[in-house]
């Protein structure tokens, strides 16, 4: 077989592998929608569960998930973005920054359930927040931190050095340079990373399992020290803990969760595409 022929065959095989990798995601989304859409009613998304979660809706879980997403970002975003600025704009390459870098990649790889343990011990027990929205949001935010730092740092380092040099050569200070030249140009990239993590905060289960989640709580939270329901834990509970729940209700819950997460991701993808089109340096 000559080189060109074997090349064609190999590329076809690679394409096949790629399809096998990407196709399941569409299958999963398809299955969830097909089986769940029938059970989605206005009542389902606007009322609390009744009858041991076998009837009624999932409103408290939706609200709880949004509370956790927002809460997690309140902590993680400022801390993460500032850390990224430090690492990219101020820190040189020395032992300390290497340690920080190592810490960040390690944090990014820690299993989510270990974050759950950490949140349980530190926020629930040590700081005595109890199982609460506060403890859960803090736990999620620490889990989100490394990714936000990494994404922000990448966005910052994509701003051309020449922009910084121009600003400095005009006598601007370091912070002025960051504030007026670097940050505005890195912002879309930073936002992309943040939105991605909002989605992850909404979909994670293990870290909130013992820090915030209520099994069933048919009313909405009033303060950050309340427990709340959340979509992922709710799906877990009705799938494994509660017998005799209609499969369509479970699929519908999965569909709502998937919708929340995918819509958030969709925004992130749109933002990045716009960013790529706009960038011209």
């Amino acid at each position, binding site marked *: 077989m000559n080189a060109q022929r074997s090349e064609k065959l190999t590329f076809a095989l690679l394409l096949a592998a790629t399809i096998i990798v990407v196709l399941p995601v569409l299958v999963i989304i398809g299955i969830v929608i097909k089986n769940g859409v029938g059970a989605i009613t206005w009542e389902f998304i606007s009322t609390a569960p009744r009858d041991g979660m076998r009837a009624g809706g999932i409103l408290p879980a939706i609200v709880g998930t949004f509370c956790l997403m927002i809460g997690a970002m309140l902590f993680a975003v400022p801390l993460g973005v500032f850390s990224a600025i430090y690492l990219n704009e101020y820190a040189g390459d020395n032992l300390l920054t290497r340690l920080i870098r190592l810490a960040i990649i390690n944090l990014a790889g820690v299993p989510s359930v270990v974050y759950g343990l950490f949140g349980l011990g530190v926020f629930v027990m040590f700081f005595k927040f109890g199982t609460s929205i506060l403890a859960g949001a803090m736990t999620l935010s620490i889990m989100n931190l490394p990714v936000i730092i990494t994404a922000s740092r990448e966005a910052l380092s994509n701003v051309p050095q020449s922009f910084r*040099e*121009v600003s400095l*050569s*005009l*006598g601007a200070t370091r912070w002025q340079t960051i504030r007026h030249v670097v940050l505005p140009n890195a912002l879309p990239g930073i936002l992309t990373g943040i939105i991605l993590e909002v989605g992850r905060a909404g979909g994670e289960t293990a870290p909130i399992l013992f820090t915030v989640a209520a099994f069933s709580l048919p009313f909405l939270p009033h303060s950050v020290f309340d427990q709340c329901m959340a979509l992922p834990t709710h799906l877990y509970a009705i799938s494994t803990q509660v017998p005799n729940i209609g499969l369509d209700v479970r699929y519908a819950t999965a569909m709502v969760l998937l919708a929340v997460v995918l819509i958030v991701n969709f925004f992130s993808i749109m933002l990045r595409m716009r960013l790529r089109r706009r960038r*011209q340096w």
Partner: protein
Amino acid sequence: MVAPNTGDSTPAKVATRDLSVWYDDEQALKSISLDIRHNELLGIIGPANSGKTTFLRTLNRLIDRTPGIRVSGQVRLDGRDIFQDIPVEELRTRVGMVFALPVPLPMSVFDNVAYGPRRHGIGNRKALAELVEESLWAASLWDEVKDRLDEPAMNLSGGQQQRLCIARALAVQAEVILLDEPCSGLDPVSTSMVEDALVGLKENHTIVLVTNVIAQAARISDRTAFFLMGELIEVDGADKLFTLPADERTAGYIEGRYG
């Protein structure tokens, strides 16, 4: 080493003494002693990696940003040591820099020129407008862009962008302007417009022009310095250096034996 050229009676605007620069273990500049006079246009020529750009970036301390950099010796601006006596922001305000490729910031023409003054606390719209006009005028760009001030600076042609960068340095009232091969990306017409702008600026500014085109240095510089492998080989009036160089290596470079 070359003795500092002090034949002129006016004190130097910028003076370096035994200036050496290392990148980690590699010495990029070797004991440079050079006086740059008030309101002269000093050309710097030399092959790639001869230290021209390093020299330029040392004069306004942009070199500080390079990891692993080490500097020894002195640089004085109007007699004051730039590493000790002058805050770095002030130094960079007074000693402006124009880079090899034009770097318009991603904002409008007006905002580009106003960027520096705004950082120095000028917020008054009218004062800014005047300053912008003056600077663009001095960079020989006003007529071409006066109706396009709100357009993104990226829309200008290469030659216009480069003059915009000069105007930007003028807007913070730079006294010394450093230019690092400013015409390397430009066509002949744009090149001659930038050159004309530089010659016009000479009246009130000290200009240091690094160039890889020997003819450009010969055309517009008052004096020319020749760098080779981190050393200052010689510096002399352009008429002399290009016709009767004192050093064999300068002659070799001008005749194009290397580079």
